[in-house]
């Protein structure tokens, strides 16, 4: 898949994977991996980007004698998911157009 296209999709994927509960990095990888190829080196910049865009809140909690970061989707993050779902109809239109045109040639 095109890198730029995948990047935009993965942002929303991560938000959807976290959902309504708190999630940590490794857990997010495990949730998404069966559906989309993703590694820690891909996830880390996504989490940073989403946090800077106020789509994620981060908190640290003690786990097994160490600190673990948990991510939670903010209202802005939920809006981003909704926007993507609304954009999907337009994406399908574009795909249909391309498929139609390339089938005819």
């Amino acid at each position, binding site marked *: 898949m095109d890198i730029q296209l995948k990047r935009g999709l993965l942002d929303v994927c991560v938000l959807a994977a976290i959902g309504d509960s708190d999630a940590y990095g*490794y857990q997010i990888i*495990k949730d998404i991996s069966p559906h989309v190829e993703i590694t*820690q080196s891909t996830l*880390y*910049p996504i989490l*940073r*980007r989403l946090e*800077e865009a106020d789509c994620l809140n981060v908190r640290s909690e003690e786990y097994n004698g160490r*600190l673990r*970061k948990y991510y939670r989707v903010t209202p802005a993050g939920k809006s981003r998911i909704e926007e993507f779902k609304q954009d999907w109809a337009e994406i399908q239109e574009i795909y249909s157009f391309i498929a139609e045109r390339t089938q005819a040639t």
Partner: protein
Amino acid sequence: MKKAAFLRSLAQQLKGIPPSDIRQTLAYYSEAVSDAMDDGLDEEAAVRSLGTAEEIALSVKEELAGGGKLPQTRKRSGFTVLLLILGFPVWFSLLAAGAGILTAVFICIVALAVAAWALPLAFAAGTLYAAVCALLALVHGNLTVCACFAGAALVCAGLCILTYQLCKSLPRRCAALIRTIWTKLKALCFRRRNAK
């Protein structure tokens, strides 16, 4: 590779990015290794699952560069350096003249703020003088002159209060004006540099 060695290698690869970003990145990947080990992987397998330190550092630097947080290193060609050296008498003189003009403008603004205070002070002095004259005229029994000076004292007092109210906010406005001019100049310089 063990976790400590991996993190040392990663820290080495991340050199050049802000220290706070290095700390955050190392903390994240340290946590990632620990989480993978909690999930049942041994230490070396957990480190291997993250990818190489080079790949991770590259993705972090690409992300930071995209967000404009990485300092952009500009390479100057030899020709540019030569032009800078040869043109020094011209560009330095222009730069110095510009700085001189800017300083003069700022000094004028500050002088205006200071000089404006002469008005309320003058009116205050006028009030005092007219009041004293009115009192003296009253003592000498000259009511007409007393009334004139009293009226003048009231007018001066009113003007003193009015000009004081105007001058009170002047230093703040002048400081804001200086800040605005400086900010616009900086924005102009950086816009030209970024446009290149």
